[in-house]
């Protein structure tokens, strides 16, 4: 496999581009440039491949390339923003499929390889195949084609059994070279089924983590097949994605507070999809709050007694200044009875140096929540409790409230599940557009500031 320098060079350049592209994508400021750089890498690598001397079936290759990319491009360009995750899933599955197919061709060819190569080919095929069918299921679930989480009897045992079987067949394939067709076929079949069976019982809410996991899998599969084909660009791209994807999966699982093993082996509810999540307070991290606000146009901050208790006013104002530097419009909405004395919030905001022209009272600002991207509720509770509007039995019924619930996203900073002065539960915290940042308001604001600064 001595290839001309320009082919090797193109692949090398591709690998470089991928690395820098991925690096770009890991920060909001350069993310968009990152994907473009990676795109150039892909073009370079593909172009170089066409230049391999003696490449056969160029027509077929071109057709396949055209067909695959056209279909994917069009579907990807049309799909609604909210349907993106399943598109990622299906494209990822295709990558896994491709990796498996490459291994399949190698087996069909029957070239003899050394042990390591065969082993990696088989491993890549296994992982690729699982990722393929698994991703398809993930897509089907998110797309709503498959509505129920199908849980087979003794699911976990079945999973383990199937996995063992597949691995055994794979081992056999490796050992009994040259490959025996029945064995290989059985191996592929089992691997594909494994992907199906493992993914079927997983609920829709957990899917993003699973997709990320399959994404890392596909990366590994690609890396392994790269070894088989002797192509370092594939190895690097695949392994970088494999490593990055693994870490990403962990980060996502952590952000959702669901250990990965839990997702794969102990599905949340036998029959439930994501319904169980409704009616829960959804937690969010400071970094996300920072990013959400940093890339918003309009933010309204609703301070309450908790801000006073935490003495968070200085931090909150610093955060505001950072947001304004980034071009975000920030306003403070003061409820008439926020805090524990008339003008409590005014005292604090004045102390922090918030200019009066950023402070609005209920009548002035209530109409603006509907246009706000984020309502950041800091240690307030009763004053944003929608029960006051509708629930006649509530002790706070009839009190005018700030319409924080009308904002696109509501973030509530509080220490825990404590209720406010009136002691009533707040339905806002459970609503779909609301997420909770748990912690004392001062350190939380500090964390948000830190992340805002990191975003430049």
């Amino acid at each position, binding site marked *: 496999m001595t290839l001309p320098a320009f082919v090797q060079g193109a692949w090398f350049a591709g690998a470089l581009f991928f690395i820098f592209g991925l690096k770009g994508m890991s920060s909001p400021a350069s993310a968009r440039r990152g994907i473009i750089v990676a795109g150039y890498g892909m073009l370079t690598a593909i172009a170089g491949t066409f230049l391999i001397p003696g490449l056969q079936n160029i027509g077929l290759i071109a057709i396949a390339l055209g067909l695959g990319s056209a279909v994917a491009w069009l579907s990807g360009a049309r799909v609604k923003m909210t349907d993106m995750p399943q598109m990622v899933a299906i494209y990822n599955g295709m990558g896994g499929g491709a990796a498996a197919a490459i291994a399949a061709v190698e087996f069909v060819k029957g070239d003899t390889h050394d042990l390591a190569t065969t082993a990696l080919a088989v491993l890549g095929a296994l992982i690729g195949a699982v990722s393929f069918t698994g991703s398809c299921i993930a897509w089907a679930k998110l797309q709503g084609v498959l509505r129920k989480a199908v849980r087979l009897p003794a699911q976990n045992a079945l999973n383990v059994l199937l996995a063992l079987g597949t691995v055994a067949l794979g081992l056999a394939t490796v050992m009994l070279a040259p490959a025996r067709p029945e064995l290989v076929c059985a191996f592929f079949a089992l691997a594909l089924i494994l992907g199906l069976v493992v993914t079927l019982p997983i609920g829709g809410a957990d899917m993003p983590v699973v997709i990320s996991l399959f994404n890392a899998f596909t990366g590994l599969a690609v890396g392994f097949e790269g070894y088989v084909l002797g192509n370092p660009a594939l190895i690097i791209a695949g392994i970088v994605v494999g490593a990055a994807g693994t870490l990403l999966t962990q980060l996502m699982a952590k952000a959702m507070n669901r250990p990965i093993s839990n997702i794969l082996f102990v599905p949340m509810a036998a029959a439930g999809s994501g319904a169980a999540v409704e009616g829960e307070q959804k937690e969010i991290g400071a970094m996300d709050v920072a990013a959400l606000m940093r890339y918003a146009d309009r933010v309204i901050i609703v301070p309450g*007694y908790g801000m*006073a*208790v935490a*003495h968070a006013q200085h931090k909150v104002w610093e955060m505001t200044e950072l947001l304004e530097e980034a071009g975000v419009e920030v306003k403070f909405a003061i409820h*008439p*009875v926020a*805090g*524990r*004395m*008339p*003008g*409590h919030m005014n*005292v604090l905001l*004045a*102390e922090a140096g918030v200019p009066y022209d950023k402070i609005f009272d209920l009548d002035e600002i209530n109409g603006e929540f509907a246009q706000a991207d984020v309502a950041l509720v800091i240690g307030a509770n*009763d004053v944003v409790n929608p029960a*006051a509007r509708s629930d006649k039995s509530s*002790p*706070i*019924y*009839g*009190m*005018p409230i700030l319409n924080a619930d009308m904002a696109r996203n509501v973030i509530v900073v509080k220490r825990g599940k404590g209720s406010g002065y*009136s002691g009533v539960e707040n339905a806002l915290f459970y609503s779909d557009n609301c997420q909770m940042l748990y912690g004392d308001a001062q350190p939380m604001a500090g964390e948000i500031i830190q992340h805002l600064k990191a975003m430049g």
Partner: protein
Amino acid sequence: MPLTIAVARERAPGEKRVALSPESARRFKDLGAELRIEAGAGLSSHFVDADYADVASAHSLEETYAGADVILRVSPPSPEEIAAMPVGSVLIGLLRPFELPARLDALNGRRITAFALELLPRISRAQSMDVLSSQGACAGYQSGLIAAARCAKFFPMLTTASGTVRPARVLVIGAGVAGLQAIATCRRLGAAVEAYDVRAAAREQIESLGAKFVDTGVQADGAGGYARDLSAVEKLQQAERLARAVAAADVVITTAAVPGKAAPVIVTEEMVAQMRHGALIVDLAAETGGNCALTQPGEHVDVGGVHIHGPLHLASRMPTHASDLYARNLYNFLSPWVREGQLAFDGADEILAGALLCRDGSTVHPLVKHVLGEA
């Protein structure tokens, strides 16, 4: 004929507020009510007659009240004023219900439906009508200013070429609406503030304003967010721990109150004797007797170099904003029951029922009846 609301000039000495502000007048108009105001009624609050556009002007008390359906007031009416009220009219204001049985009799004599805003239940919905809060905020703010202006020292710390001045030490006793506002005001001026209250929740509230809580180990939460009376033992313990804080203070501001009762005496003569020459006590509870044993309501006494102020009518020291807030409270109290220019009270409403003092010729509020019966 539409509802007629009448507002006379306040005649009580020291009272500078007015029950109708130009803004609340505008709002009542929008509800379809007729308004009548006595000429010059707003002047002491710096609202000149011309500010009340579209409000009928009257030139005497009698002319003002004649034929009125609703009478808005700040302070309780004198016998002459009651005599000028139409029989069966509605009276809303700060009526000092626990004070003068004769006044209630006079009101009942004219079958006046009287709402005493002191009795407003402190539920969330009533906050916008809560005159005790709005006027308490004014009083607390003023008490902080009086303390600062009368103190022989700087409140803030200052490092100057002539030496460093240490911040004054302020002790606020009672951290209700007025007390918290006093804390905030003194803190704004840079004083080192300590504060004390019997309610358990007060600690966090005090600390939320950057003041230090004086822990005496006594807690006395009562009903409805108010404090209850203390037992003798509790009083002793409280006194002992407080005495130390009082002796160390340059300024003591007291705001402790128990509704329907005389103010508790917290700063005793012995404590005053321990204070330094030039120290200052501002006693906001002067109207109900004072939290300091030596307070003379409305006076300013010097006891061995310690100055004790018992200011009255604190809110009247800032009449423009005090009236503004008060008038808005009244508007918020009355407006839900004005439909198409007519008054229609819902007798079952918790707030109305809570504030209702007299109706159909008799005093109906249970606590008032109880307290007056006792006395």
